[in-house]
């Protein structure tokens, strides 16, 4: 306590709280301050505008937000959407990772696939909606397709970058120690590209989560995105706001989950460096 108190005593805010605990949650504290300021601003703005269709009262939205977590209809739609996201992500993962590893490892594969991939990638994800409905009808099919479609590219690109970023001497070292090609893929390519692959997973999940809500506006009559459209049609803006906050929160939690997985799988990156001369 004494040690910490003395090292950061120049900081005026720290004096108010026990130094040790505050130091650990400093970031959380600052972000909570910003959120609180925004909510207070919302409270006063809503009271001033007095138009619940444009900007519902803060209290009302908060109530909607809190009750939503116990609302069976909302929760079952959220579960459905999450299932779609994970299914779509899984397809993207199964296709994207091997393709990315191949394109990263083999120059020929990169030359063969990258032009087509880079053009398909430019088609806006919403432009796939009509075609996906033609192919898969309404319901799960098009939404899962759209998620997979938007998740596969960040996965492929990050996997390629991960493989390309591997020090060529790692390959040479492994070969000089007698490693065969399968050994090299298992022991060098995959672990070497893993940090980048996991970043790709986080991006892919984020894109998937964003595109599923959009897809559900159009291509289905169930799911979290569909609930939003419904709330809008019924002019229940407070609920719409609550659902939007929820979708942001769910995406945030998924991302945090991936961060935890990343720290677990690549723990070697987070070890303390050597201290001393």
């Amino acid at each position, binding site marked *: 306590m004494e040690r910490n108190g003395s090292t950061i005593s120049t900081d005026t805010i720290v004096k108010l709280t026990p130094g040790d605990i505050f130091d650990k949650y400093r970031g959380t504290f600052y972000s909570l301050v910003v959120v609180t300021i925004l909510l207070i601003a919302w409270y006063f703005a809503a009271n001033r505008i007095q138009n619940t269709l444009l900007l519902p009262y803060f209290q009302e939205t908060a109530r909607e937000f809190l009750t939503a977590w116990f609302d069976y209809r909302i929760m079952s739609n959220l579960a459905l959407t999450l299932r779609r996201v994970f299914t779509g992500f899984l397809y993207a993962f199964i296709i994207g990772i091997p393709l990315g590893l191949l394109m990263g490892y083999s120059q020929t594969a990169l030359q063969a696939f990258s032009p087509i991939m880079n053009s398909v990638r430019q088609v806006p994800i919403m432009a796939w909606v009509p075609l996906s409905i033609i192919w898969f009808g309404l319901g799960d099919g098009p939404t899962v397709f759209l998620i997979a479609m938007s998740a596969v590219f960040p996965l492929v690109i990050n996997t390629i970058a991960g493989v390309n970023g591997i020090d060529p001497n*790692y390959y040479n*070292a492994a070969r*000089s120690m007698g490693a065969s090609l399968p050994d090299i893929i298992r022991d060098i390519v995959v672990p070497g590209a893993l940090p980048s692959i996991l970043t790709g997973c986080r991006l892919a999940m984020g894109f998937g989560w964003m595109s599923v809500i959009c897809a559900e506006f159009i291509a289905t009559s169930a799911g979290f995105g569909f609930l939003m459209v419904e709330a809008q049609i019924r002019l229940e803006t407070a609920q719409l706001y609550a659902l939007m906050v929820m979708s942001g929160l769910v995406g945030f939690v998924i991302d945090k989950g991936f961060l935890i997985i990343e720290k677990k799988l690549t723990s070697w990156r987070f*070890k303390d460096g050597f201290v001393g*001369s």
Partner: protein
Amino acid sequence: MALLEVEGISKIFTQRKKPPHIVLENMSFTVERGQYVSLLGPSGCGKTTLLTMMGGFLTPDAGEIILAGNKVEKPGPDRGFVFQNYALFPWMTVKENILYSLQVKKLSKQEQNKRLHELLEISHLFGSENKYPVQLSGGMQQRVAVVRALASRPEILLLDEPLGAVDFQMRELLQEELAALVEGAKTTVVMVTHDVNESVYLSDRVIVMSADRGQIVKDVYIDLDRPRDRQSEDFKAYVSELTELVRQAFREKNVELQPDFVQKDVNDNMQTNFTNAYNRMSSRYTNVSHGRVAK
């Protein structure tokens, strides 16, 4: 018979829109078992290229390298290679790094542990076997890299400027560690370096290469007792002799496009090999510069 025979090695690098660059021309020497040999020369003299070919990562355009009777064609566990940046796998612990060559050979756990014990012993790394490379000091990383290369009991240890990235203060300390480690392992070593002091401190023999086509300027035997005293007159004499030779080697660099075929004691057969290789490269160069350029 010598352990390592380098016979008429030539290497030519070609780049688009540039004349072929002769890195090594018809280089030959042998290394006896148990010798510690340094390849010393100014940067760009082809010493690292030569070591890379000994490692099997690069193929010579002419000539061959023979290790213990076998022609070197690709990398293999009979040569332990220590890279300049050590190339320790950061996702593996010290133990996993050291045992990698045994693990791919699928040796039993018992044998692996036995070997690990021996290697930790000579490298004084006990207690660090479960750490990751990032958690180690530069000196410890170097020791891990060396014993990892020694793990498969190679015929020869190839060191590519193992202390190139270390600051001056650390350098002498690590040289002592390296000397002790190599002596303990009783192995043959070929080391590439541009540090005269280092080569005198560590080697039995120093081959000075010129900046031009990697010709051998002089082959100097270091006749000093170990451990060596850097302050002794004899040591200093070797250092100044070699410094002068390197300086001379650097001055000898002359930029010429055609290979000079007039040589003192060349094996005709090897010379033909080199000429063929050179012509092959030149024609490829011409083809590329006139043909379409693939993207």
